[in-house]
């Protein structure tokens, strides 16, 4: 995998960055991809933030995994975020494992992979790193900053940290802080990895192995939380996996077991276990109100960004109520905010799958914002 990663777009971030953990870093790689073309008036740039296990390959075929990009349902030529019209940018978050500065990269001081010597990063650190990409690409102000789940958190963080760098934002299926339930689920994922003896306090990376069993279990936990109870029942029910009767063993008798095992074990091929530890930690530490004295109202004070918050009715990871709390805080600060709840049984994963009502809303908002942004630029 590391050989292939040499051919992807990378920015060397030369500006020094003060991380929330107080370490200062500079000269680190930020891997990214772009789709479409930046127009002359530079009013068509959309920054997409990826979620926990995503990467910079939003659309088309991911050159590393050879699978379709994680948001190909929404981004591409003629799609809701139409790359014939818009210039779409996505960077691999720092802490990730698709070419950006992360725990499997080589620490120049020791000439070995960081492992657990990698600093604990935050959502704000991720966003600060990605802002340098806008300077590199010559984009002063984005048309839109958007993402789902952790991508949504990043878009909220981006708007509060850099209030003048985007005209609009669509935080999807997220909140302004991580709930106890979400921290608990992340802890379950981390414990699964750390309980795998191969993990060896993160040093597996030097031995060129992966704590596959632990990482697969971590992924299974995630997958359960991305679906809804009803959605799962409808998809799998009690159906058996290619067999007529129980086998009275602990093999995957049920389809749902087989699905989880498949998801778990294909995931280990493309993801680094230490990255999961670091990124889930960044999500847990996310709390916008904590960053600003005076809480959320202060966080969103003087926001000029036009927000659209989208939630999914069957999402129990980031509920409609949590999303609505963001709307309430934005309203209380006098920000310009719209909110829509998409009625679906597809759970938290709804933003990644073909959910027509969601995609129509996304397109409708972005297209109308583009007209407004063009007008604003003309004045």
């Amino acid at each position: 995998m590391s050989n292939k990663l040499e051919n992807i777009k990378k920015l060397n971030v030369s500006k020094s960055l003060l991380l929330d953990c107080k370490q200062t870093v500079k000269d680190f790689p930020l891997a990214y991809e772009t789709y479409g073309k930046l127009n002359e008036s530079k009013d068509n740039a959309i920054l997409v933030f990826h979620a926990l296990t995503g990467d910079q390959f939003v659309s088309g075929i991911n050159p590393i995994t050879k699978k379709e990009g994680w948001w190909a349902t929404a981004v591409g030529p003629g799609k809701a975020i139409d790359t014939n019209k818009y210039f779409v940018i996505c960077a691999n978050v720092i802490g990730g494992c698709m070419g950006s500065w992360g725990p499997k990269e080589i620490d120049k001081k020791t000439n070995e992979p960081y492992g657990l010597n990698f600093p604990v990063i935050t959502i704000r650190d991720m966003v600060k790193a990605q802002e340098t990409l806008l300077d590199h690409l010559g984009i002063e102000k984005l048309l839109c900053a958007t993402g789902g789940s952790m991508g949504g958190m990043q878009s909220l963080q981006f708007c509060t940290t850099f209030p003048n760098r985007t005209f609009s934002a669509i935080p999807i299926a997220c909140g302004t802080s991580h709930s106890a339930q979400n921290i608990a689920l992340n802890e379950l994922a981390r414990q699964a990895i750390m309980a795998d003896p191969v993990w060896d306090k993160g040093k597996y990376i030097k031995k060129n192995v992966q704590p596959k069993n632990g990482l697969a279990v971590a992924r299974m936990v995630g997958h359960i939380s991305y679906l809804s109870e009803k959605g799962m029942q409808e998809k799998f029910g009690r159906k058996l996996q290619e067999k007529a009767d129980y086998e009275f063993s602990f093999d995957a008798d049920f389809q749902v077991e087989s699905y989880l095992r498949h998801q778990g074990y294909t995931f280990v091929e493309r993801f680094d276990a230490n990255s999961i530890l670091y990124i889930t930690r960044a999500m847990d530490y996310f709390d916008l109100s904590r960053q600003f004295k005076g809480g959320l109202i202060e966080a969103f004070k003087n926001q000029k960004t036009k927000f659209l918050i989208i939630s999914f009715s069957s999402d129990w990871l980031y509920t409609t109520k949590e999303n609505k709390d963001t709307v309430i805080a934005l309203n209380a600060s006098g920000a310009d905010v719209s909110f829509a709840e998409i009625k679906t049984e597809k759970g938290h994963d709804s933003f990644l799958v073909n959910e027509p009502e969601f995609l129509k809303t996304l397109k409708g908002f972005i297209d109308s914002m583009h007209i407004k942004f063009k007008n604003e630029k003309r004045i």
Partner: protein
Amino acid sequence: MKKEFKVIADLLPKNVRVLDVGCGDGSLMDLLVKEKNIEVRGLELVEENVKKCIYKGLSVIEGNAETELHQFPNQSFDFVVLSQTLQAFYNPEKVLKDLLRIGKSVIISIPNFGYWKVRTSLLLFGKMPVTKNLPNTWYDTPNLHMCTIKDLFDFCSEKNIRIDRAIGVNENSISEIKKSNLEIKNLFSKLGVFLLS
């Protein structure tokens, strides 16, 4: 009624902040943005309408005015508009109080149950009135608390709500309603539009 939106728009000065509660597909909001450069936000219950507003680039929040007005801070808008919805709430008094808390002024409109066609319909046929303005039958109407223009005058005086303007609206005419002509306007107006504070 298109006339109603025109009357509401005429009541509003330019460049103010307006909250349109129950904004529907955003027709009124669109009018206010284009003609008065008003910064307008909407609150709408029906998902389909919310999307229509979003496509038009209007700021709208999907939510229920009966339970979700608390999210708007005190006096955060210059005007709050509620068009022909007051009678559909379980607790119109509570909603109206919330509107007066959120807006410095409030504009509401009501279908007038005192309109002569409504009155005669009940009087002559002995059946719940179904008219152009009140098209639903008794069992499927969303209107839980029908009232007349006169009822609203009484209500405001009882609750110490000031009526700054009251306007009777028909398809082709509008007229100022005063205490002195209340009886006659209550009989001949299809809609009442009120500016309250």
